[in-house]
């Protein structure tokens, strides 16, 4: 080789030192191993250590809690709207404030709650589920969280300062353009998009690489837990769809700030370009929220029916085909804009087709229940609530996939009822179920079963009371996004019922929070595997140690904890003196590379602050692109640059 002699000597010295490195194995296990791993993997204490953490469990927890706080905030806005609509000709809230409320409610729920909470749960649980010690790119993961947090704070601080957006969560041009939305409200919305897209895309890359490259040896694609499959499909969908809204909102900002003409019909632009780009993201977005929830349902159904999911390959193929079909439906949001006849037919057919894989999954869950021994614990109740509610929402979805019906029902409360049935029924119910299910893993304690059951029935019945009457309000012609309605059109009763239902749901959510907080201190102490489940996250203590697993498990079936005989097979030989994880091959999951794991670092946080300043100042001046990019670039370089220029026997990411 062409290395100088000193380098060769150095290589030999490093090779000698490498043989002395301590590794886990028969000679180093049990409490001694755990103490050493705990020492190696812990982060620095204090606020700086807290900001520098790269532990996926800490980041996942922050993601989940932040998203739930945004859920609560968005929920309060919903209650305010329901109060305004409780009776006709109400003047509790004026038209302008009402516009802000529904914009903030929709934007918060879609961008700051639904997608981030799913990613947060996955960031916490996926590495445990696939049997590894960290996510891929843990610093990118931390960066993703801070970007999300800053984007959410920017939106809500703007709202508190009375410059919150008022253009709907989809911000259609020309309403959101420079002519009809002077001021900065629309820019705040568009930049919130930029923040949350950067965050979601980073988390998607982290999850995609974690699922493909860090699975435990033997966990082939065909043995991967269904939640991991769901998140793999979702990560790919995020990667393909979110650039669309980021591009669209950047073009909107540049129309507003530097006078480009993308959406200006008078200068050869087209307002409908916005709708295409937005819905090319917006429709897959619905499935980005829904597919993780189907993963939750598969996990819960398997555990509480005590048998492997019926027809696993069909469930996987359904997830994949839903992910693909989701990109062929966006135009059904635009039926009322006028389309060529063939466009109507194609997108109607495509919209109806997507019901097929979803129905197949539902039949697989029903078959699992039929053939298993269902135990109606709280998570399972949420699954049943999900199936009932989601099927109703799915059926109204097939109804409005038909163009003549859609033209009649477009922009009425029928649509509001439909998408709350599919989003709350389809995603929030399974989410509440899975929080109850994974709560003992995350906190080490069980949630109260009795409160949980009361809660489920309140939420389930309150939800039906709130949203079922909206179908009728919609059929009677009540339009969305209008702050009041006149008396005498038959709209009083459905609206009053909806308002009552909304408050029942809100009380139930409050009860859920109380249950969560009280159980943190008073709940029964959880064992490693309190539900008797089959997947690897239950093979470690509750809550898991910072390094997740003392030894990396080996997987020999789809349900490893049910199929092991007494002992869990593991591989040995990872370092204990430095953070290291095991990479395996993509399909067969055979051990491939020992990968060093980055040390905690403040640079992801600093980089997110720099990028945040860049994004926020670019609302006000195009020059922010220049002066904002420089600190961001410096922070990113410092993040990447090794903190000591010294060769180690084995690589270290400092």
């Amino acid at each position, binding site marked *: *080789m*062409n290395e100088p002699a000193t*380098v060769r000597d150095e290589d030999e010295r490093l090779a000698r030192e490498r043989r002395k490195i301590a590794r886990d*194995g028969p000679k180093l296990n049990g409490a001694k191993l755990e103490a050493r791993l705990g020492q190696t993997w812990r982060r620095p204490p204090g606020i700086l250590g807290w900001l520098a953490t790269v532990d996926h469990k800490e980041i996942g927890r922050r993601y989940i809690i932040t998203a739930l706080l945004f859920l609560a905030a968005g929920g309060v806005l919903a209650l305010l709207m329901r109060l305004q609509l409780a009776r006709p000709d109400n003047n509790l809230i004026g038209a302008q404030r009402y516009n802000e409320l529904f914009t903030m409610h929709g934007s918060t729920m879609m961008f700051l709650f639904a997608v981030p909470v799913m990613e947060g749960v996955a960031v916490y649980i996926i590495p445990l589920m696939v049997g590894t010690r960290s996510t*891929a*790119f843990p610093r*990118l993961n931390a960066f993703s969280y801070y970007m999300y947090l800053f984007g959410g704070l920017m939106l809500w601080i703007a709202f508190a300062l009375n410059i919150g957006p008022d253009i709907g969560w989809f911000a259609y041009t020309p309403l959101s353009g420079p002519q009809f939305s002077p001021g900065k409200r629309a820019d705040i919305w568009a930049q919130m998009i930029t923040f949350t897209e950067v965050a979601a895309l980073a988390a*998607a*890359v982290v999850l*995609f*690489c974690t699922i493909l*490259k*860090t699975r435990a*040896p033997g966990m082939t694609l065909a043995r991967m837990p269904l939640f991991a499959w769901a998140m793999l499909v979702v990560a790919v969908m995020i*990667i*393909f769809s979110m*650039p*669309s809204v980021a*591009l669209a909102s950047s*073009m909107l900002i*540049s129309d507003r700030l*530097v006078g*480009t*003409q*993308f959406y200006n019909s008078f*200068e*050869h*632009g087209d307002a409908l*370009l916005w709708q*295409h*780009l937005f819905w090319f993201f917006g429709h897959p977005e619905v499935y980005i929220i829904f597919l993780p929830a189907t993963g939750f349902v598969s996990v819960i159904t398997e555990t509480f029916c005590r048998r492997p999911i019926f027809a696993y390959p069909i469930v996987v193929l359904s997830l994949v085909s839903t992910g693909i079909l989701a990109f062929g439906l966006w135009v059904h949001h635009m039926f009322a804009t006028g389309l060529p006849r063939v466009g109507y037919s194609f997108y109607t057919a495509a919209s109806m087709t997507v019901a097929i894989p979803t129905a197949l999954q539902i039949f697989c869950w029903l078959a699992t229940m039929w053939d298993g021994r269902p135990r109606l614990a709280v998570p399972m109740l949420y699954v049943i609530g999900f199936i009932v509610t989601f099927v109703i929402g799915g059926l109204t979805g097939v109804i409005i996939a038909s163009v003549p019906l859609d033209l009649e029902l477009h922009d009425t409360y029928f649509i509001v009822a439909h998408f709350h049935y599919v989003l709350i029924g389809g995603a929030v119910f399974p989410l509440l179920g899975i929080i109850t299910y994974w709560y003992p893993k995350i906190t080490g304690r069980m949630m109260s079963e009795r409160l949980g059951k009361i809660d489920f029935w309140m939420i389930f019945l309150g939800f039906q009371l709130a949203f079922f009457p909206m179908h009728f309000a919609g059929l009677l012609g009540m339009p969305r996004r209008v702050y009041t309605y006149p008396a005498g059109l038959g709209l009083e009763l459905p609206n009053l019922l909806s308002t009552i239902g909304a408050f029942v749901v809100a009380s139930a959510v409050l009860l859920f929070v109380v249950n969560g907080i009280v159980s943190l201190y008073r709940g029964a102490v959880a*064992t490693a*595997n309190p539900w008797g489940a089959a997947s690897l996250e239950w093979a*470690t203590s509750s809550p898991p140690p910072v390094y997740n697993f*003392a030894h990396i498990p080996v997987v020999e079936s789809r349900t490893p904890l049910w199929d092991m005989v*007494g002992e*869990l*097979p*593991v*591989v*040995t*030989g*990872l370092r204990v003196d430095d953070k290291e994880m*095991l*990479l395996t*091959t993509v399909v067969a999951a055979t*051990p*491939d*590379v*020992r*990968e*060093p794991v980055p040390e905690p670092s403040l640079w992801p946080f600093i980089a997110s602050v720099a990028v945040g300043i860049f994004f926020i100042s670019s609302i006000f001046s195009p020059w922010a692109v220049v002066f904002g990019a420089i600190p961001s670039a410096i922070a990113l*370089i410092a993040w*990447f*640059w090794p903190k000591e*220029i*010294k*060769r180690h026997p*084995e*690589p270290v990411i400092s």
Partner: protein
Amino acid sequence: MIPAPRFTDSVADLPTYKFGPSSLTWWGIIGYMVIEGAAFALAFAAYFFLMGHEQGWPPEGRPPPDLLAGTLFTIVILLSEIPNTMIKRAAEKRDVAAIRALMPVIVGIGALLLLIRAFEFNSLNCRWTDNAYASIIWALLLLHTAHILTDWIDTIVLWMLMRTDLGWEGRRLVDTDENSLYWRYVWLLWLPIYLMIYWVPRL
């Protein structure tokens, strides 16, 4: 109870780096390439969507962009693949000396490309405010300039790192290999943009 372990194989002798799809960062880079590719593809879609409404392209009978700067840029960026491939092969052969010699060449080419790019902006024959056609070709050129600029800075940082002792680290060689892979993507994406900015308006 945590199940007791049953020890099977040892992974202690596995390498700590590998090239290509065995590398974790390779997958991360593919992920970001797809993200950028999706953004570019949608910008292309926006271009053709706007063009589909028009009788003439550029509209209003304006002149298309001048060819000289863009064509020169295309020739230089295609030629840059020669040192780029040499660096990639040197990384795979662990030839650190060759990498250290070639990195300044590719960084220099990047600087030259950015210089030519400035002239390209000057030869578009429109301002971004003129109409949607002007907006979209400015956007395409700006997006690609961001692409070139970020990869150029990234390459400078990598060059500096390769000059240190850490240049001998296997993982830094993987970085070099993947940086070359990324550069290929940057110039491949340029080719459709070149056609859209300079030749589609001449059809």
